[in-house]
């Protein structure tokens, strides 16, 4: 049966993240003829509303307000619930990102709904949806169904596929006016210490070159950046490297960092602790470079080179420079 689907756009630094299009693609598939809507919340985000019909949106709701400049649960709940009223969804999709992860349970509770978190696959359409999600840091998976009521889902970036080509939906933009009272501003963001470096968003990168404590210093990351430049890759890191101060925490991959699923993950001087694997073991192809043949990272690697990363990584860069020239 047809179901209405509402997607929360994942906005970061004034841009729509790819996961937004992945969610729209999934929404189009599972709606089974129902209406697909997308909510864009923020301040100065109106321009993002254009052209979403091609990606599968019938309706585009925009709530643009200074109170939504930074994420706070109460103000975003208020704004999003307005979109829920307007879209009347049966299924609600959020990104499993800093904002989506936090807002989805708020909305699910408001709606008395079940929620399936960190979904990597959706089977079925309309009434019969089965969601796949990792448990135990990715050591196992479960398939989950929602038994009654509305369905709230958070989606792991880089796993569902966006629609191919132009879906030719209306993408009708509707601005919603929302006023915020003191109860909607129970918490406020006083300051943001931006630590994220520029460059490719780790959760969207197709290739990641990642460094661990084995990189030994901030300087030691240089060969990794050089390899990444040749590959058009993003640079990531283990907790070990972040804690040691070799790079900033924004690069951290793992259970407490970002969860990534690139086509290619190159782990340099990373031992492969379970909390790190939680963030990258679903990568399509994993390469490990480590001088310890017993390092657990080799157990998840498709290709392993036992050796000194300071020899291996520059060799890769040189060879690739020649081959890709």
């Amino acid at each position, binding site marked *: 049966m047809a179901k209405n689907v509402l997607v929360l756009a994942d906005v970061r630094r004034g841009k729509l993240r790819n996961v937004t299009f992945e969610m729209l693609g999934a929404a189009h598939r599972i709606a089974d003829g129902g209406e697909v809507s997308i909510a864009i919340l923020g301040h100065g985000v109106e321009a993002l509303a254009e052209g979403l019909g091609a990606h599968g949106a019938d309706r585009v709701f925009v709530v643009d307000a200074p109170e939504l400049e930074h994420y706070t649960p109460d103000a975003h709940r208020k704004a999003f619930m307005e979109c829920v009223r307007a879209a009347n969804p049966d299924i609600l999709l959020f990104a499993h990102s*800093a904002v989506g992860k936090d807002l989805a349970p708020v909305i699910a509770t408001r709606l008395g709904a079940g929620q399936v*978190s960190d979904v990597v696959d959706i089977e079925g359409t309309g009434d019969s949806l089965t969601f796949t999600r990792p448990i*135990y840091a990715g050591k196992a998976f479960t398939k989950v169904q*929602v038994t009654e009521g509305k369905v709230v889902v958070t989606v792991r970036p880089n796993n569902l596929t966006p629609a191919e080509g132009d879906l030719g939906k209306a993408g009708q933009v509707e601005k919603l006016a929302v006023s915020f009272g003191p109860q909607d501003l129970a918490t406020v963001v006083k300051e943001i210490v931006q630590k994220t470096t520029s460059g490719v968003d780790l959760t969207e990168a197709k290739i990641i070159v990642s460094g661990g404590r084995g990189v030994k210093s901030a300087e030691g990351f240089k060969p990794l950046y050089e390899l990444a430049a040749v590959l058009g890759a993003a640079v990531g890191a283990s907790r070990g490297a972040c804690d040691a101060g070799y790079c900033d925490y924004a690069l951290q991959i793992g259970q*407490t960092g970002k969860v990534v699923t690139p086509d290619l993950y190159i782990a340099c001087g990373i031992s492969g602790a379970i909390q790190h694997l939680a963030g990258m073991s679903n990568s399509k192809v994993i390469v490990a470079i480590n001088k310890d043949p017993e390092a657990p990272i080799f157990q998840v690697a498709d290709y392993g080179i036992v050796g000194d990363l300071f020899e291996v990584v520059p060799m890769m860069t040189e060879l690739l420079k020649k*081959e890709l020239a």
Partner: protein
Amino acid sequence: MNILVCLKQTFDTEERIVVENGRVKEDGVKFIINPYDEYAVEEALRLKEEHGGEVTVVSVGPSRFEEAIRTALAMGADEGILADDPALFGDEYTVAKVLAAIIRQRPYDIILAGNQAIDDGSGQVAVRLAEELGIPHISTLTKLVVEGNQVTGYRDAEGDVEVVQGTLPVVVTAQQGLNDPRYPTLIGIRKASKKPITRVTAADLGLNPDDIRPRTKVVDTFLPKPKQAGKILQGELQDQVRELIQSLRTVDKVIG
């Protein structure tokens, strides 16, 4: 200050997962306090040391959870509440409602929880709890400051730090980096055996199991497809690198 901590007992981080008949086997598994909840316990104890008051640990789960609660008591928490009535078990929707029912029966100023459990890891329960109680929450904190009524949380938002302000009562969730949890001392362990753990049932909480029935069901649990055994490359380093790049380009086709 009345400080509550939501605590879940989980598999030890290093446990191997065995699935039998579509379920994760628990036999012979070593259990620990969910690591993020351990940060929450530690933070609660620091709040108590600074502001005075009581730390109460609240759990929904089978009787084996008692061991984890005892550990928290040995660290310095004052008392535990365990809802071990199977009528109260269910999904995140259910657990949040049960926690809320327990917590509504008592005074509280701040509720600490983990930002996720390392087993089921939905990251829902604490946020849902705040919403059930109708109080604000600030999640994934790497630093917490409470002064009078004022709460400042340093929230980890994908590597950036958001400094968020609110007032008590509030739910906060712990991220790695919040603190270094203390180990229980021998005296602590001895004292813990005398501290109270209250067990509560659906009847005690005035909950009708049908009103809190889960909204989701797990239809299958399985291990990821075993990866083809990885290939440790052999030979001269130069040749290994050449072979690697050749494979990535022509076999896996992940490089242009």
